[in-house]
């Protein structure tokens, strides 16, 4: 690779190893999927990150993907969000919810536009504290769109070994992809 600075060729770094590792990736097939699961997540990292490109099978945009830890669907999550849609900015949340917040998706009305999300899950294997999730994501549709910053708390001290990503009443469309990474401490 090369670079251009004021017409001159710059200098570049060579590839290095890092403490950020790809653990697993799931890409939705032609039939769509109602959920995506990462199981047997090793406890050898300090933090996890999920990087996603997402489209729903709904016609409309703005469906929300959700997430459970260790298949816990009880109201053991607290969630908050800061949202903006190009005109309105708002914030809301609830102290008792059955899922952690993911983020929004595009719909089938925009055939080649996917929403994107980046979620961090901090200290996921620590058995002395509740687990926190942070997710930024959204989409832009040339004059409309959504950008959301969301935070969730799973009120459990269990180490997270299983993550279930859920399309709540809809399906993830083909080529939606969720990549799980581990960050060493």
């Amino acid at each position, binding site marked *: *690779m*090369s*670079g*251009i*600075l*004021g017409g001159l060729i*710059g*200098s*570049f*770094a060579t*590839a*290095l*190893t*890092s*403490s*950020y*590792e*790809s*653990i*697993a*990736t799931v890409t939705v097939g032609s039939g769509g999927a109602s959920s995506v699961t*990462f199981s*047997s*997540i*090793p406890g050898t990292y300090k933090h996890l990150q999920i*990087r*996603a*490109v997402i489209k729903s099978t709904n016609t409309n945009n703005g469906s929300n993907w959700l997430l459970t830890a260790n298949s816990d669907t009880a109201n053991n999550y607290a969630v908050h969000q*800061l949202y*903006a*849609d*190009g*005109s*309105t*900015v708002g914030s809301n949340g609830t102290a008792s919810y059955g899922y952690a917040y993911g983020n929004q998706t595009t719909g089938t009305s925009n055939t*080649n*536009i*996917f*929403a*994107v999300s*980046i979620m961090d899950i901090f200290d996921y294997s620590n058995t002395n504290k509740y687990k926190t999730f942070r997710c*930024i*994501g*959204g*989409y*832009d*549709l*040339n*004059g*409309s*769109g*959504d*950008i959301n*910053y969301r935070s969730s708390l799973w009120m459990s001290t269990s180490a997270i070994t299983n993550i279930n990503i859920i399309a709540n009443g809809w399906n993830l469309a083909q*080529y939606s*992809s969720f*990549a799980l*990474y*581990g960050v060493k401490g």
Partner: protein
Amino acid sequence: MAAGSTYTPIATATLGSAASSYTFTSIPSTYTDLVLIVSGSNAASASPLMQVGNGSVDTGTNYSMTVLRGTGSVVNSFNNPGDTWFNTFMSPATGEIYTVTANFQNYSNTTTKKTALFRAGAAGGNVIAEVGIWNNTAAINQIKVLLSGVNFNAGTSFTLYGIAAA
């Protein structure tokens, strides 16, 4: 689950003298996502801009953004379609150090328009969360970071990372 090291630095540059732009070219397609971090300051107040492309950067009106902006006193949101670049809308003060992080996900696929997430902040300017789209399905292999009519100060750095999914 198999694991492999990634978040690989592809290229980095620090300006030895003032310049109006820096361009990453021939970006390999071997990663899943790109992360670009800009840390620097300007000779005058101006928001860093980005253009992307394949073979050359796209200077047409093919960029659109949805922005969440905090000014230090007001929070607002707006759409910015039909622009000739991704605009970070950060408005740093002259000489003020700022940071921009841009995530280009699935940047090398050739079937979808490219959506990117931006976070940017300048203590004397704005704090920004932004999603943008480049209305082109081509793989991205060039990214240009620029200012409009202003120079980046010497010491401004540009670092590009690649993240490869399993």
